[in-house]
């Protein structure tokens, strides 16, 4: 049996079709410094130009043998398109993702999502970058992600105000979340129309170390479900932070797969959800992929353990921190491909 391309491998897995081996891919950022350097770029340059974004993404996948190319990289595009200014930290020698230092709106009622949001700020950059990647690296699936309504609200307004408002101004919070929900739908549909092969809804701000499972059930879950319903398959739902009490609700939102990070137990999630749900996760994106002191052997053992815990694909629990320890990053991918030749709970093999 001929080896599958990364694109065939990932898309077949998401369709529950048999694959040759477990892919190493992600729904979140996968851009790493070796890829950025190989493309002749510096970190602050990859966020603002479609070709630079595409080239850094492609080179990251090629050099590290990832099974996907993922764009965009930062969480500020929508907020910027709505009129907020971003910091790109162009003078910093460190790797700093763009942020919104000050938010233009103080209250939820002021927030307006422009109808032509996809034409504003850096938003047009993503469809252009998708086009370049598909042309230059057709063997890779292109993954895109969109923030969930609660996390996106934290990019537009002050998070502590929103958290308190969950109790004090429930109906305004609901209305605000609805605005962000509609925006996420439009955005995801636009990325899919531009050719993105799988899409991830990531809502890191709602885990059980922040919000109660009750709030998740009442305010968040219905909106995640609405977004996922409006998008085509394949679609993935990612929540980082403590999701042990949420995994059943996550699996019920209508995604083709769910992903979690190290704060959620894969083995427990598998027990609760059975063998019929695609579960991805939960690679530690500091200790395993960056920390200079971590020996390669430890990484290999950790990947095997993660697979034995019952994932259908090893997936970083968050954006990869770009300053990887190359040897360990390659070991993650290689071990996943080798140790993942056997079937996983919800993933068949050829």
């Amino acid at each position, binding site marked *: 049996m001929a080896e599958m391309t990364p694109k065939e491998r990932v898309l077949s897995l998401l369709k529950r079709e048999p694959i040759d081996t477990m892919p190493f891919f992600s729904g979140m950022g996968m851009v790493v410094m070796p890829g950025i350097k190989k493309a002749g770029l510096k970190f602050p340059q990859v966020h603002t130009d479609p070709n630079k974004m595409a080239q850094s993404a492609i080179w990251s996948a090629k050099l590290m043998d990832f099974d996907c190319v993922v764009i965009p990289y930062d969480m500020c595009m929508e907020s910027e398109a709505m009129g907020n200014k971003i*910091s790109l*930290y162009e003078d910093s020698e460190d790797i*700093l993702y763009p942020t*919104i230092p000050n938010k233009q709106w103080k209250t939820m009622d002021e927030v307006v999502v422009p109808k032509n949001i996809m034409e504003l700020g850096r938003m047009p950059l993503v469809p252009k970058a998708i086009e370049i990647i598909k042309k230059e690296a057709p063997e890779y699936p292109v993954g895109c992600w969109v923030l969930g309504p609660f996390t996106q609200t934290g990019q537009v307004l002050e998070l*502590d105000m929103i958290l308190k408002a969950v109790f004090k101004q429930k109906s305004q919070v609901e209305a605000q979340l609805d605005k962000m929900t509609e925006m996420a739908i439009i955005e995801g549909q636009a990325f899919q129309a531009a050719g993105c092969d799988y899409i991830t809804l990531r809502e890191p701000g709602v885990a059980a*170390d*922040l919000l109660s499972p009750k*709030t998740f059930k009442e305010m968040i879950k219905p909106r995640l479900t609405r977004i996922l319903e409006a998008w085509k398959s394949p679609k993935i739902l990612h929540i980082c932070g403590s999701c042990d009490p949420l995994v059943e609700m996550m699996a019920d939102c209508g995604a083709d797969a769910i992903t979690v990070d190290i704060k959620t137990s894969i083995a427990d999630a598998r027990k609760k959800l059975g063998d019929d749900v695609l579960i991805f996760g939960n690679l530690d994106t500091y200790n395993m992929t960056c920390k200079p002191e971590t020996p390669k052997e430890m990484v290999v053992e950790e990947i095997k353990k993660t697979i034995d815990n019952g994932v259908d694909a090893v997936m970083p629990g968050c954006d990869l921190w770009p300053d990887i320890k190359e040897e360990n990053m390659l070991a993650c991918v290689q071990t996943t491909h080798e140790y993942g030749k056997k079937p996983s709970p919800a993933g068949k093999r050829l």
Partner: protein
Amino acid sequence: MATKEEILKGLSDSVVEYNEDGVKEWSNKALEEKVDPLEAIMDGLAHGMQIVGDLYERNEYFVPEVLMCADALYAGLDILRPHVPQEQSGKMKGQVVIGSIQGDVHDIGKNLVKMMFDVAGFEVYDLGRDVPLENFVKEQLRTDSEIVAMSAMMTTTMLGMKKVIKMIKEKNPNVMIMLGGAPVTRDVSTLFGADGYAESAGNAVTEGIKMIGRLREVEGKNR
């Protein structure tokens, strides 16, 4: 007439119930009834916050509730703190520089840790968020603070802390450094050469509150 016990309980309960008006009422009552303001802070407000910490650890309270309780605590602190006699607050005197590191615009965890220092009566120099690395060093030197507390919520900003610690320790090896933030683990904090630690926005809640508990013990012994 309310007894001291009733007042302390009223303060504590109102913090737990995130009842700002209740806290204000009991704080004023404490002053009227001549309850030692430091005792009202430690055994009323801070005691309530410790209960909040327990509720958070037991998954009965989540971050929104904790933030509202913190608001209630501050409502009382604003009333009581000015009445703590100078020599008494001097006992706990200390200075701390606090902020979220450059690239991080989150400050919930930082603010909860700051609350702990405010309760203890520290002089707090809050640099805010998205703070350039060298500003921590400059502010420590300017204020000669004993403690520098930094937080980073994102994995992507935590590595900057290592540089700050090195810069500060080079200039003044006696400064105590505290790290906090979602991705920072105890291992990382040790690795970077920091002295104290609070793990996440969530754990900052419990760590901060545990510190309040220790402060209350110390304060109790001194009284």
